[in-house]
Protein backbone atom coordinates (compact mmCIF):
# COMPACT_ATOMS: atom_id res chain seq x y z
CA UNK A 1 0.00 0.00 0.00
CA UNK A 2 2.99 2.27 0.44
CA UNK A 3 3.06 5.03 -2.15
CA UNK A 4 6.28 6.52 -3.32
CA UNK A 5 6.29 10.32 -3.28
CA UNK A 6 6.86 10.45 -7.00
CA UNK A 7 4.19 8.07 -8.13
CA UNK A 8 2.14 10.96 -9.49
CA UNK A 9 3.57 10.58 -12.94
CA UNK A 10 1.78 7.69 -14.45
CA UNK A 11 1.55 5.31 -11.54
CA UNK A 12 3.50 2.78 -13.54
CA UNK A 13 3.55 0.36 -10.64
CA UNK A 14 0.12 -0.84 -11.70
CA UNK A 15 -0.72 -3.37 -14.36
CA UNK A 16 -0.57 -1.71 -17.74
CA UNK A 17 -1.69 -3.08 -21.07
CA UNK A 18 0.29 -2.59 -24.25
CA UNK A 19 -1.19 0.35 -26.12
CA UNK A 20 -3.87 -0.82 -28.53
CA UNK A 21 -4.67 0.88 -31.83
CA UNK A 22 -7.60 2.52 -30.07
CA UNK A 23 -5.34 3.81 -27.28
CA UNK A 24 -2.97 5.28 -29.85
CA UNK A 25 -5.86 6.93 -31.64
CA UNK A 26 -7.20 8.47 -28.43
CA UNK A 27 -3.74 9.56 -27.37
CA UNK A 28 -2.78 11.06 -30.73
CA UNK A 29 -4.31 14.53 -30.13
CA UNK A 30 -2.13 14.95 -27.05
CA UNK A 31 0.99 13.64 -28.76
CA UNK A 32 0.42 15.92 -31.74
CA UNK A 33 -0.23 18.85 -29.42
CA UNK A 34 2.98 18.24 -27.49
CA UNK A 35 5.04 17.83 -30.67
CA UNK A 36 3.63 20.96 -32.31
CA UNK A 37 3.32 23.37 -29.41
CA UNK A 38 5.89 22.12 -26.91
CA UNK A 39 8.66 20.35 -28.82
CA UNK A 40 8.78 22.60 -31.89
CA UNK A 41 8.92 25.93 -29.99
CA UNK A 42 11.48 24.46 -27.58
CA UNK A 43 13.65 23.42 -30.52
CA UNK A 44 13.38 26.96 -31.90
CA UNK A 45 14.68 28.31 -28.59
CA UNK A 46 17.41 25.67 -28.51
CA UNK A 47 18.62 26.87 -31.91
CA UNK A 48 18.40 30.52 -30.79
CA UNK A 49 20.50 29.76 -27.73
CA UNK A 50 23.51 28.93 -29.89
CA UNK A 51 23.15 31.94 -32.19
CA UNK A 52 24.47 35.49 -31.98
CA UNK A 53 22.50 38.52 -30.81
CA UNK A 54 20.45 40.33 -33.46
CA UNK A 55 20.41 44.13 -33.59
CA UNK A 56 16.68 44.65 -33.13
CA UNK A 57 16.21 41.60 -30.96
CA UNK A 58 15.97 38.20 -32.59
CA UNK A 59 19.17 36.40 -33.55
CA UNK A 60 21.80 36.21 -36.24
CA UNK A 61 22.24 32.62 -37.37
CA UNK A 62 25.94 32.22 -36.60
CA UNK A 63 26.87 29.37 -34.29
CA UNK A 64 28.41 30.17 -30.89
CA UNK A 65 28.75 28.54 -27.46
CA UNK A 66 29.30 31.96 -25.89
CA UNK A 67 25.78 32.19 -24.44
CA UNK A 68 26.19 28.99 -22.46
CA UNK A 69 29.62 30.11 -21.32
CA UNK A 70 27.96 33.29 -20.03
CA UNK A 71 25.35 31.25 -18.13
CA UNK A 72 28.15 29.71 -16.08
CA UNK A 73 29.10 33.12 -14.69
CA UNK A 74 29.00 33.00 -10.85
CA UNK A 75 26.49 35.89 -10.73
CA UNK A 76 23.90 33.94 -12.68
CA UNK A 77 24.59 30.69 -10.84
CA UNK A 78 24.09 32.48 -7.52
CA UNK A 79 20.83 33.95 -8.79
CA UNK A 80 19.71 30.51 -9.91
CA UNK A 81 20.52 28.99 -6.52
CA UNK A 82 18.67 31.78 -4.72
CA UNK A 83 15.62 31.34 -6.97
CA UNK A 84 15.58 27.62 -6.19
CA UNK A 85 15.78 28.38 -2.46
CA UNK A 86 12.90 30.87 -2.62
CA UNK A 87 10.88 28.34 -4.55
CA UNK A 88 11.62 25.60 -2.02
CA UNK A 89 10.63 27.75 0.95
CA UNK A 90 7.44 28.74 -0.88
CA UNK A 91 6.61 25.12 -1.62
CA UNK A 92 7.19 24.04 1.97
CA UNK A 93 5.07 26.88 3.35
CA UNK A 94 2.27 26.10 0.88
CA UNK A 95 2.36 22.44 1.94
CA UNK A 96 2.21 23.18 5.66
CA UNK A 97 -0.50 25.81 5.24
CA UNK A 98 -2.47 24.06 2.51
CA UNK A 99 -2.55 20.43 3.65
CA UNK A 100 -4.97 20.92 6.58
CA UNK A 101 -7.24 22.98 4.33
CA UNK A 102 -7.23 20.31 1.63
CA UNK A 103 -7.93 17.68 4.27
CA UNK A 104 -10.80 19.65 5.75
CA UNK A 105 -12.40 20.26 2.35
CA UNK A 106 -11.92 16.64 1.33
CA UNK A 107 -13.65 15.37 4.50
CA UNK A 108 -16.41 18.00 4.45
CA UNK A 109 -19.97 16.84 3.65
CA UNK A 110 -20.14 16.10 -0.05
CA UNK A 111 -22.60 18.90 -0.73
CA UNK A 112 -20.17 21.48 0.57
CA UNK A 113 -16.91 20.37 -1.05
CA UNK A 114 -17.18 22.12 -4.39
CA UNK A 115 -18.44 25.25 -2.72
CA UNK A 116 -15.33 25.32 -0.53
CA UNK A 117 -13.09 24.62 -3.54
CA UNK A 118 -14.65 27.57 -5.35
CA UNK A 119 -14.04 29.71 -2.29
CA UNK A 120 -10.35 28.85 -2.43
CA UNK A 121 -10.13 29.76 -6.10
CA UNK A 122 -12.35 32.83 -6.50
CA UNK A 123 -9.80 35.31 -5.06
CA UNK A 124 -7.58 34.44 -8.01
CA UNK A 125 -10.19 35.45 -10.54
CA UNK A 126 -9.15 39.04 -9.90
CA UNK A 127 -6.16 40.68 -11.54
CA UNK A 128 -2.75 39.57 -10.30
CA UNK A 129 -1.50 43.17 -10.33
CA UNK A 130 -4.36 44.59 -8.29
CA UNK A 131 -4.17 41.70 -5.82
CA UNK A 132 -0.46 42.18 -5.36
CA UNK A 133 -0.81 45.95 -4.97
CA UNK A 134 -3.41 45.18 -2.31
CA UNK A 135 -0.64 43.36 -0.43
CA UNK A 136 1.45 46.52 -0.76
CA UNK A 137 -1.37 48.38 1.00
CA UNK A 138 -1.33 45.82 3.79
CA UNK A 139 2.45 45.56 4.24
CA UNK A 140 3.67 49.13 3.72
CA UNK A 141 5.18 51.03 6.65
CA UNK A 142 1.94 52.96 7.21
CA UNK A 143 -0.12 49.99 6.10
CA UNK A 144 -2.92 48.03 7.68
CA UNK A 145 -0.78 45.43 9.39
CA UNK A 146 1.56 47.98 10.96
CA UNK A 147 -1.37 50.12 12.18
CA UNK A 148 -2.96 47.05 13.71
CA UNK A 149 0.23 45.93 15.45
CA UNK A 150 0.85 49.47 16.71
CA UNK A 151 -2.65 49.67 18.09
CA UNK A 152 -2.54 46.46 20.03
CA UNK A 153 0.87 47.54 21.26
CA UNK A 154 2.83 44.61 19.90
CA UNK A 155 5.33 46.98 18.33
CA UNK A 156 6.29 50.56 19.18
CA UNK A 157 7.30 51.70 15.72
CA UNK A 158 6.45 50.56 12.19
CA UNK A 159 8.03 47.27 11.27
CA UNK A 160 9.70 47.08 7.84
CA UNK A 161 7.82 44.40 5.97
CA UNK A 162 7.42 45.61 2.40
CA UNK A 163 10.44 45.31 0.08
CA UNK A 164 11.98 42.46 2.06
CA UNK A 165 12.60 38.82 1.08
CA UNK A 166 9.87 37.89 3.55
CA UNK A 167 7.34 39.94 1.57
CA UNK A 168 8.39 38.13 -1.60
CA UNK A 169 7.87 34.74 0.04
CA UNK A 170 4.50 35.86 1.38
CA UNK A 171 3.44 36.96 -2.10
CA UNK A 172 4.62 33.70 -3.63
CA UNK A 173 2.84 31.61 -0.99
CA UNK A 174 -0.33 33.59 -1.53
CA UNK A 175 -0.15 33.14 -5.29
CA UNK A 176 0.49 29.40 -5.20
CA UNK A 177 -1.47 28.17 -2.17
CA UNK A 178 -4.49 27.01 -4.25
CA UNK A 179 -2.19 24.98 -6.49
CA UNK A 180 -1.16 23.00 -3.41
CA UNK A 181 -4.64 22.68 -1.93
CA UNK A 182 -6.45 21.43 -5.03
CA UNK A 183 -4.28 18.42 -5.94
CA UNK A 184 -4.03 17.29 -2.30
CA UNK A 185 -7.81 17.58 -2.04
CA UNK A 186 -8.22 15.11 -4.91
CA UNK A 187 -6.20 12.56 -2.91
CA UNK A 188 -7.93 13.21 0.40
CA UNK A 189 -11.37 13.06 -1.11
CA UNK A 190 -11.05 9.37 -2.00
CA UNK A 191 -9.90 8.20 1.45
CA UNK A 192 -12.20 5.67 3.02
CA UNK A 193 -14.16 7.28 5.82
CA UNK A 194 -13.93 4.21 8.04
CA UNK A 195 -10.18 4.11 7.57
CA UNK A 196 -9.76 7.73 8.60
CA UNK A 197 -11.96 7.20 11.65
CA UNK A 198 -10.02 4.08 12.57
CA UNK A 199 -6.68 5.86 12.22
CA UNK A 200 -7.79 8.52 14.65
CA UNK A 201 -9.54 6.19 17.10
CA UNK A 202 -6.87 3.50 17.33
CA UNK A 203 -3.76 5.59 16.81
CA UNK A 204 -1.84 7.29 19.54
CA UNK A 205 -3.13 10.81 18.98
CA UNK A 206 -3.99 12.76 15.86
CA UNK A 207 -0.40 13.66 14.95
CA UNK A 208 0.59 10.00 14.72
CA UNK A 209 -2.57 9.20 12.79
CA UNK A 210 -1.65 11.87 10.28
CA UNK A 211 2.00 11.04 9.87
CA UNK A 212 1.66 7.24 9.88
CA UNK A 213 -1.59 6.70 8.02
CA UNK A 214 -3.09 9.73 6.34
CA UNK A 215 -0.04 11.40 4.81
CA UNK A 216 1.29 8.22 3.15
CA UNK A 217 -2.13 7.56 1.66
CA UNK A 218 -2.36 11.05 0.19
CA UNK A 219 1.23 11.17 -1.07
CA UNK A 220 0.28 11.26 -4.77
CA UNK A 221 -1.63 14.47 -4.10
CA UNK A 222 1.25 15.90 -2.09
CA UNK A 223 3.70 15.09 -4.87
CA UNK A 224 1.42 16.69 -7.45
CA UNK A 225 1.03 19.80 -5.29
CA UNK A 226 4.78 20.11 -4.81
CA UNK A 227 5.26 19.87 -8.56
CA UNK A 228 2.55 22.43 -9.35
CA UNK A 229 3.95 24.94 -6.84
CA UNK A 230 7.70 24.48 -7.01
CA UNK A 231 8.10 24.58 -10.78
CA UNK A 232 5.99 27.64 -11.64
CA UNK A 233 7.26 29.54 -8.56
CA UNK A 234 10.77 29.23 -9.93
CA UNK A 235 10.02 31.37 -12.95
CA UNK A 236 7.70 33.94 -11.40
CA UNK A 237 9.35 37.32 -11.02
CA UNK A 238 6.52 39.86 -10.90
CA UNK A 239 5.97 39.23 -7.17
CA UNK A 240 9.67 39.89 -6.61
CA UNK A 241 9.39 43.21 -8.46
CA UNK A 242 6.32 44.51 -6.66
CA UNK A 243 6.74 43.17 -3.11
CA UNK A 244 10.54 42.83 -3.07
CA UNK A 245 11.26 46.18 -4.72
CA UNK A 246 13.31 44.43 -7.41
CA UNK A 247 16.40 44.66 -5.22
CA UNK A 248 17.66 41.16 -5.86
CA UNK A 249 17.00 39.54 -9.19
CA UNK A 250 15.37 36.16 -9.62
CA UNK A 251 16.25 33.95 -12.54
CA UNK A 252 12.89 34.93 -14.06
CA UNK A 253 13.84 38.63 -13.94
CA UNK A 254 17.13 37.96 -15.71
CA UNK A 255 15.52 35.91 -18.47
CA UNK A 256 12.67 38.37 -18.99
CA UNK A 257 15.15 41.23 -19.18
CA UNK A 258 17.01 39.65 -22.08
CA UNK A 259 13.85 39.83 -24.18
CA UNK A 260 12.08 42.89 -22.84
CA UNK A 261 14.89 45.04 -21.44
CA UNK A 262 17.39 47.28 -23.18
CA UNK A 263 20.00 44.50 -23.54
CA UNK A 264 17.83 42.79 -26.16
CA UNK A 265 19.94 39.65 -25.89
CA UNK A 266 17.62 36.87 -27.04
CA UNK A 267 20.28 34.17 -27.46
CA UNK A 268 21.49 34.61 -23.88
CA UNK A 269 17.92 34.61 -22.56
CA UNK A 270 17.26 31.43 -24.54
CA UNK A 271 20.42 29.82 -23.15
CA UNK A 272 19.38 30.64 -19.58
CA UNK A 273 15.90 29.26 -20.21
CA UNK A 274 17.18 26.08 -21.82
CA UNK A 275 19.56 25.50 -18.90
CA UNK A 276 16.65 25.79 -16.50
CA UNK A 277 14.43 23.47 -18.53
CA UNK A 278 17.09 20.81 -19.06
CA UNK A 279 18.17 20.83 -15.40
CA UNK A 280 14.65 20.34 -14.09
CA UNK A 281 13.49 17.97 -16.80
CA UNK A 282 16.51 15.83 -15.91
CA UNK A 283 15.59 15.99 -12.22
CA UNK A 284 12.02 14.88 -12.99
CA UNK A 285 13.24 12.13 -15.28
CA UNK A 286 15.62 10.90 -12.63
CA UNK A 287 13.04 10.79 -9.83
CA UNK A 288 10.76 8.96 -12.23
CA UNK A 289 13.40 6.32 -13.01
CA UNK A 290 14.23 5.80 -9.35
CA UNK A 291 10.60 5.29 -8.59
CA UNK A 292 10.30 2.78 -11.43
CA UNK A 293 13.18 0.76 -10.09
CA UNK A 294 11.75 0.85 -6.59
CA UNK A 295 8.43 -0.47 -7.87
Amino acid at each position, binding site marked *: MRQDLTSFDGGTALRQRPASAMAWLLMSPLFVWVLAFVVAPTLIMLVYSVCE*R*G*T*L*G*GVVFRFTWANYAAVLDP*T*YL*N*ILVRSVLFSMVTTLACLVMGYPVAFYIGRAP*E*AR*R*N*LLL*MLVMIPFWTSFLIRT*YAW*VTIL*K*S*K*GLLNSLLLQVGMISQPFEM*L*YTPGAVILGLVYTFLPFMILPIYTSVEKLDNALVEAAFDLGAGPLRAFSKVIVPMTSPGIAAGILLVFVPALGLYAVN*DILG*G*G*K*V*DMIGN*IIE*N*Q*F*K*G*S*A*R*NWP*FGAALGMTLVVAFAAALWYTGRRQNRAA
Partner: protein
Amino acid sequence: MKRTLFFVALVLAATVASTGHTKQAEPKEINLFAWSEYVPQGVIDGFTAETGIHVNYETFASNEEMLAKLVSGAQKYDLLQPSEYTVEALIKEGRLYPVDWSKVPNFKNIGKEFKNLPHDPEQKYSVPWMAGSVGIVVNSEKVTDPVKGFNDVFQPKYSGRIVVLDDAREIVSWALATVGKGPNDVGPQSLEQVKPILTRWLPMVKVYDSDSPKTALLNGDVDLGVVWSGEAALLYVEDKKFQYVLPAEGAHQFLDSLVIPKDAPNPDGAMAFMNYILRPEISKLISADFPYTNPNLEARKLLSPKELANPASYPPGNPKLSGFLDIGDLAVPIDKLITDLKAKG
Protein backbone atom coordinates in the same frame (compact mmCIF):
# COMPACT_ATOMS: atom_id res chain seq x y z
CA MET B 1 -22.94 19.02 -7.30
CA LYS B 2 -20.37 18.45 -10.07
CA ARG B 3 -22.53 20.36 -12.41
CA THR B 4 -22.23 23.60 -10.50
CA LEU B 5 -18.87 24.38 -12.03
CA PHE B 6 -19.87 23.13 -15.40
CA PHE B 7 -22.92 25.35 -15.27
CA VAL B 8 -20.84 28.37 -14.30
CA ALA B 9 -18.45 27.74 -17.18
CA LEU B 10 -21.35 27.28 -19.56
CA VAL B 11 -23.04 30.52 -18.60
CA LEU B 12 -19.76 32.40 -18.86
CA ALA B 13 -19.01 30.85 -22.23
CA ALA B 14 -22.50 31.61 -23.51
CA THR B 15 -22.31 35.24 -22.43
CA VAL B 16 -19.13 35.83 -24.33
CA ALA B 17 -19.79 33.59 -27.32
CA SER B 18 -22.91 35.60 -28.13
CA THR B 19 -20.88 38.76 -28.63
CA GLY B 20 -19.17 37.40 -31.73
CA HIS B 21 -15.50 37.57 -32.47
CA THR B 22 -15.15 37.68 -36.21
CA LYS B 23 -13.18 40.64 -37.48
CA GLN B 24 -14.75 42.44 -40.40
CA ALA B 25 -12.38 42.86 -43.33
CA GLU B 26 -12.39 46.66 -43.59
CA PRO B 27 -11.26 48.06 -46.89
CA LYS B 28 -9.82 51.15 -45.19
CA GLU B 29 -7.87 50.55 -42.02
CA ILE B 30 -4.54 51.22 -40.40
CA ASN B 31 -2.73 49.08 -37.84
CA LEU B 32 -1.33 51.25 -35.07
CA PHE B 33 1.18 49.66 -32.67
CA ALA B 34 1.73 52.07 -29.80
CA TRP B 35 2.37 52.35 -26.06
CA SER B 36 -0.64 51.41 -23.97
CA GLU B 37 -2.85 54.30 -22.82
CA TYR B 38 -0.87 56.74 -24.94
CA VAL B 39 -3.36 57.29 -27.77
CA PRO B 40 -6.69 58.56 -26.38
CA GLN B 41 -9.74 56.68 -27.63
CA GLY B 42 -11.34 60.04 -28.48
CA VAL B 43 -8.54 60.85 -30.92
CA ILE B 44 -8.90 57.49 -32.66
CA ASP B 45 -12.69 57.83 -32.88
CA GLY B 46 -12.38 61.38 -34.25
CA PHE B 47 -9.96 60.24 -36.94
CA THR B 48 -12.23 57.38 -38.01
CA ALA B 49 -15.30 59.61 -38.07
CA GLU B 50 -13.54 62.11 -40.30
CA THR B 51 -11.67 59.84 -42.72
CA GLY B 52 -13.58 56.57 -42.58
CA ILE B 53 -10.28 54.83 -41.85
CA HIS B 54 -10.64 52.26 -39.09
CA VAL B 55 -7.76 52.13 -36.56
CA ASN B 56 -6.65 48.79 -35.06
CA TYR B 57 -4.82 49.88 -31.90
CA GLU B 58 -2.42 47.28 -30.54
CA THR B 59 -0.30 48.11 -27.52
CA PHE B 60 3.10 47.38 -26.01
CA ALA B 61 4.79 48.28 -22.73
CA SER B 62 8.43 48.71 -23.79
CA ASN B 63 10.40 49.43 -26.96
CA GLU B 64 11.93 45.99 -26.83
CA GLU B 65 8.54 44.31 -26.50
CA MET B 66 7.47 46.20 -29.60
CA LEU B 67 10.60 45.17 -31.52
CA ALA B 68 10.13 41.51 -30.54
CA LYS B 69 6.73 41.43 -32.17
CA LEU B 70 7.83 43.55 -35.11
CA VAL B 71 10.86 41.45 -36.06
CA SER B 72 8.85 38.24 -35.77
CA GLY B 73 6.90 39.47 -38.80
CA ALA B 74 3.65 38.06 -37.38
CA GLN B 75 1.75 41.19 -38.21
CA LYS B 76 2.06 44.12 -40.60
CA TYR B 77 1.80 47.56 -39.03
CA ASP B 78 1.22 50.98 -40.56
CA LEU B 79 2.33 53.07 -37.60
CA LEU B 80 4.73 52.42 -34.74
CA GLN B 81 5.46 54.61 -31.76
CA PRO B 82 9.09 53.98 -30.69
CA SER B 83 11.34 56.14 -28.51
CA GLU B 84 14.27 58.03 -29.98
CA TYR B 85 16.96 55.32 -29.71
CA THR B 86 14.65 52.74 -31.21
CA VAL B 87 13.77 55.08 -34.09
CA GLU B 88 17.49 55.34 -34.76
CA ALA B 89 17.96 51.55 -34.69
CA LEU B 90 15.05 51.07 -37.07
CA ILE B 91 16.47 53.69 -39.47
CA LYS B 92 19.91 52.03 -39.34
CA GLU B 93 18.36 48.68 -40.23
CA GLY B 94 16.49 50.24 -43.15
CA ARG B 95 13.12 49.34 -41.67
CA LEU B 96 11.30 52.65 -42.08
CA TYR B 97 9.34 54.35 -44.83
CA PRO B 98 10.30 57.99 -45.53
CA VAL B 99 7.43 60.35 -44.76
CA ASP B 100 6.12 62.41 -47.68
CA TRP B 101 5.94 65.74 -45.88
CA SER B 102 3.60 67.22 -48.51
CA LYS B 103 1.00 64.84 -47.07
CA VAL B 104 1.74 65.94 -43.50
CA PRO B 105 1.58 69.76 -43.73
CA ASN B 106 0.77 70.14 -40.04
CA PHE B 107 4.33 69.09 -39.23
CA LYS B 108 5.08 72.84 -39.20
CA ASN B 109 3.48 72.98 -35.73
CA ILE B 110 6.35 71.03 -34.17
CA GLY B 111 8.89 73.16 -32.31
CA LYS B 112 12.32 73.38 -33.87
CA GLU B 113 14.06 71.95 -30.80
CA PHE B 114 12.26 68.68 -31.56
CA LYS B 115 13.32 68.54 -35.22
CA ASN B 116 16.50 67.13 -36.81
CA LEU B 117 17.59 65.48 -33.58
CA PRO B 118 20.50 63.01 -33.71
CA HIS B 119 18.23 59.95 -33.97
CA ASP B 120 16.66 61.23 -37.22
CA PRO B 121 19.10 63.95 -38.32
CA GLU B 122 17.49 64.64 -41.69
CA GLN B 123 13.98 64.43 -40.29
CA LYS B 124 12.95 61.92 -42.93
CA TYR B 125 11.09 59.32 -40.94
CA SER B 126 9.58 60.43 -37.67
CA VAL B 127 6.82 62.67 -36.30
CA PRO B 128 7.36 63.59 -32.63
CA TRP B 129 4.46 62.49 -30.41
CA MET B 130 5.38 63.47 -26.85
CA ALA B 131 8.59 64.14 -24.99
CA GLY B 132 9.50 63.55 -21.39
CA SER B 133 12.50 63.34 -19.16
CA VAL B 134 14.01 61.33 -16.37
CA GLY B 135 14.54 63.43 -13.28
CA ILE B 136 14.52 63.61 -9.54
CA VAL B 137 11.35 63.65 -7.53
CA VAL B 138 11.50 64.77 -3.92
CA ASN B 139 8.95 64.57 -1.12
CA SER B 140 9.59 68.11 0.14
CA GLU B 141 7.99 67.39 3.50
CA LYS B 142 10.59 64.76 4.31
CA VAL B 143 13.61 66.04 2.41
CA THR B 144 14.35 69.64 3.33
CA ASP B 145 17.93 70.02 2.09
CA PRO B 146 18.14 71.24 -1.50
CA VAL B 147 18.42 68.45 -4.05
CA LYS B 148 19.80 69.66 -7.35
CA GLY B 149 21.54 66.69 -8.91
CA PHE B 150 22.25 62.96 -8.72
CA ASN B 151 25.02 63.46 -6.16
CA ASP B 152 22.50 65.09 -3.82
CA VAL B 153 20.20 62.06 -4.11
CA PHE B 154 22.70 59.28 -3.55
CA GLN B 155 23.92 60.35 -0.11
CA PRO B 156 24.26 58.01 2.87
CA LYS B 157 21.64 59.98 4.82
CA TYR B 158 19.01 59.00 2.22
CA SER B 159 20.06 55.35 2.20
CA GLY B 160 16.98 53.11 2.18
CA ARG B 161 14.73 56.02 1.19
CA ILE B 162 15.36 56.01 -2.57
CA VAL B 163 13.37 54.60 -5.50
CA VAL B 164 14.88 54.37 -8.99
CA LEU B 165 13.83 53.06 -12.39
CA ASP B 166 14.57 49.36 -12.84
CA ASP B 167 16.49 50.00 -16.05
CA ALA B 168 20.21 49.30 -16.39
CA ARG B 169 20.85 51.82 -19.15
CA GLU B 170 19.08 54.64 -17.29
CA ILE B 171 20.98 54.00 -14.06
CA VAL B 172 24.34 53.94 -15.84
CA SER B 173 23.52 57.18 -17.68
CA TRP B 174 23.01 59.00 -14.35
CA ALA B 175 26.43 57.97 -13.09
CA LEU B 176 27.92 59.02 -16.43
CA ALA B 177 26.33 62.45 -16.04
CA THR B 178 28.08 62.95 -12.69
CA VAL B 179 31.48 62.49 -14.35
CA GLY B 180 30.56 64.86 -17.17
CA LYS B 181 29.85 62.20 -19.78
CA GLY B 182 26.83 62.01 -22.04
CA PRO B 183 24.39 59.07 -21.85
CA ASN B 184 25.71 57.56 -25.09
CA ASP B 185 29.33 57.47 -24.00
CA VAL B 186 29.11 53.87 -22.81
CA GLY B 187 32.38 52.30 -23.95
CA PRO B 188 34.32 49.92 -21.65
CA GLN B 189 36.41 52.77 -20.21
CA SER B 190 33.34 54.79 -19.27
CA LEU B 191 31.80 51.75 -17.59
CA GLU B 192 35.02 51.15 -15.67
CA GLN B 193 34.91 54.79 -14.57
CA VAL B 194 31.33 54.69 -13.23
CA LYS B 195 31.57 51.27 -11.62
CA PRO B 196 32.84 52.58 -8.26
CA ILE B 197 30.13 55.26 -8.27
CA LEU B 198 27.41 52.69 -8.89
CA THR B 199 28.93 50.37 -6.29
CA ARG B 200 28.38 53.18 -3.81
CA TRP B 201 24.91 54.15 -5.08
CA LEU B 202 23.05 50.89 -5.51
CA PRO B 203 23.11 49.67 -1.88
CA MET B 204 21.29 52.90 -0.94
CA VAL B 205 18.34 52.08 -3.19
CA LYS B 206 15.27 50.65 -1.50
CA VAL B 207 13.04 50.05 -4.53
CA TYR B 208 13.67 49.46 -8.23
CA ASP B 209 10.49 50.05 -10.20
CA SER B 210 10.04 51.08 -13.82
CA ASP B 211 6.32 50.48 -14.03
CA SER B 212 4.99 52.51 -11.13
CA PRO B 213 7.67 54.18 -8.98
CA LYS B 214 4.97 56.58 -7.79
CA THR B 215 3.52 53.82 -5.59
CA ALA B 216 6.44 53.71 -3.16
CA LEU B 217 6.61 57.53 -3.01
CA LEU B 218 2.88 57.97 -2.39
CA ASN B 219 2.92 55.28 0.28
CA GLY B 220 5.71 57.10 2.07
CA ASP B 221 8.00 54.07 1.93
CA VAL B 222 10.60 56.20 0.13
CA ASP B 223 11.14 59.95 0.09
CA LEU B 224 13.00 60.65 -3.11
CA GLY B 225 13.89 59.01 -6.35
CA VAL B 226 14.84 59.15 -9.99
CA VAL B 227 11.76 58.54 -12.15
CA TRP B 228 9.99 59.29 -15.43
CA SER B 229 8.62 62.83 -15.64
CA GLY B 230 5.17 61.40 -16.29
CA GLU B 231 5.24 59.68 -12.89
CA ALA B 232 6.37 62.92 -11.26
CA ALA B 233 3.60 64.84 -13.00
CA LEU B 234 0.99 62.41 -11.70
CA LEU B 235 2.46 62.67 -8.19
CA TYR B 236 2.36 66.47 -8.40
CA VAL B 237 -1.30 66.36 -9.38
CA GLU B 238 -1.97 64.13 -6.36
CA ASP B 239 0.03 66.21 -3.89
CA LYS B 240 2.07 69.38 -4.44
CA LYS B 241 4.68 68.22 -1.93
CA PHE B 242 6.19 66.02 -4.66
CA GLN B 243 8.61 68.24 -6.54
CA TYR B 244 10.35 67.46 -9.78
CA VAL B 245 13.92 68.53 -10.37
CA LEU B 246 15.91 68.05 -13.55
CA PRO B 247 19.39 67.02 -12.42
CA ALA B 248 22.00 69.75 -12.84
CA GLU B 249 24.49 67.25 -14.28
CA GLY B 250 22.20 66.69 -17.27
CA ALA B 251 19.18 64.50 -17.89
CA HIS B 252 17.77 62.06 -20.40
CA GLN B 253 15.05 63.53 -22.57
CA PHE B 254 13.11 60.82 -24.35
CA LEU B 255 11.03 61.54 -27.41
CA ASP B 256 8.39 59.11 -28.60
CA SER B 257 7.59 59.46 -32.29
CA LEU B 258 5.28 58.03 -34.93
CA VAL B 259 7.05 56.18 -37.73
CA ILE B 260 5.88 54.05 -40.67
CA PRO B 261 7.48 50.62 -41.24
CA LYS B 262 8.80 49.99 -44.74
CA ASP B 263 6.33 47.17 -45.37
CA ALA B 264 3.26 49.10 -44.16
CA PRO B 265 0.14 48.06 -46.11
CA ASN B 266 -1.37 51.56 -45.94
CA PRO B 267 1.28 54.32 -45.69
CA ASP B 268 -1.16 56.94 -47.00
CA GLY B 269 -3.56 56.17 -44.17
CA ALA B 270 -0.63 56.36 -41.76
CA MET B 271 0.36 59.80 -43.01
CA ALA B 272 -3.24 60.98 -42.80
CA PHE B 273 -3.16 59.91 -39.14
CA MET B 274 0.13 61.75 -38.57
CA ASN B 275 -1.32 64.90 -40.04
CA TYR B 276 -4.49 64.53 -37.99
CA ILE B 277 -2.74 64.25 -34.62
CA LEU B 278 -0.57 67.27 -35.44
CA ARG B 279 -3.61 69.56 -35.46
CA PRO B 280 -3.39 71.79 -32.40
CA GLU B 281 -6.89 70.97 -31.15
CA ILE B 282 -6.24 67.21 -31.45
CA SER B 283 -2.75 67.36 -29.99
CA LYS B 284 -4.23 69.22 -27.03
CA LEU B 285 -6.43 66.19 -26.29
CA ILE B 286 -3.34 64.01 -26.11
CA SER B 287 -1.74 66.44 -23.64
CA ALA B 288 -4.89 66.47 -21.53
CA ASP B 289 -4.76 62.70 -21.31
CA PHE B 290 -1.14 62.36 -20.26
CA PRO B 291 1.04 65.08 -18.74
CA TYR B 292 4.15 64.80 -20.91
CA THR B 293 5.89 67.63 -22.79
CA ASN B 294 3.99 68.42 -25.98
CA PRO B 295 6.38 69.16 -28.87
CA ASN B 296 3.51 70.77 -30.81
CA LEU B 297 3.94 74.49 -30.11
CA GLU B 298 0.55 75.44 -31.59
CA ALA B 299 -1.13 72.93 -29.26
CA ARG B 300 0.73 74.29 -26.24
CA LYS B 301 -0.99 77.63 -26.83
CA LEU B 302 -4.31 75.91 -26.17
CA LEU B 303 -3.26 74.37 -22.86
CA SER B 304 -4.54 75.71 -19.54
CA PRO B 305 -2.17 77.70 -17.30
CA LYS B 306 -2.49 74.87 -14.77
CA GLU B 307 -1.24 72.30 -17.26
CA LEU B 308 1.67 74.51 -18.29
CA ALA B 309 2.60 75.14 -14.64
CA ASN B 310 3.26 71.46 -13.90
CA PRO B 311 7.07 71.46 -13.58
CA ALA B 312 7.27 67.82 -14.56
CA SER B 313 5.57 68.52 -17.91
CA TYR B 314 7.20 71.84 -18.71
CA PRO B 315 10.36 72.21 -16.61
CA PRO B 316 11.41 75.82 -16.07
CA GLY B 317 14.86 77.15 -16.96
CA ASN B 318 17.21 75.75 -19.53
CA PRO B 319 18.00 72.21 -18.43
CA LYS B 320 20.74 70.16 -20.07
CA LEU B 321 18.85 67.45 -21.95
CA SER B 322 20.02 64.74 -24.30
CA GLY B 323 18.44 61.76 -26.01
CA PHE B 324 19.58 58.13 -26.03
CA LEU B 325 21.15 56.71 -29.17
CA ASP B 326 21.19 53.08 -30.19
CA ILE B 327 24.31 51.56 -28.59
CA GLY B 328 24.14 48.12 -30.18
CA ASP B 329 26.11 45.35 -28.44
CA LEU B 330 27.31 47.76 -25.74
CA ALA B 331 23.92 47.27 -24.06
CA VAL B 332 25.03 43.77 -23.00
CA PRO B 333 27.90 44.75 -20.64
CA ILE B 334 25.68 47.50 -19.15
CA ASP B 335 23.06 44.91 -18.28
CA LYS B 336 25.73 42.62 -16.81
CA LEU B 337 27.25 45.43 -14.72
CA ILE B 338 23.97 46.31 -13.02
CA THR B 339 23.05 42.64 -12.53
CA ASP B 340 26.43 42.01 -10.87
CA LEU B 341 26.13 45.02 -8.58
CA LYS B 342 22.56 44.18 -7.57
CA ALA B 343 23.53 40.58 -6.84
CA LYS B 344 26.26 41.78 -4.49
CA GLY B 345 24.01 44.25 -2.68
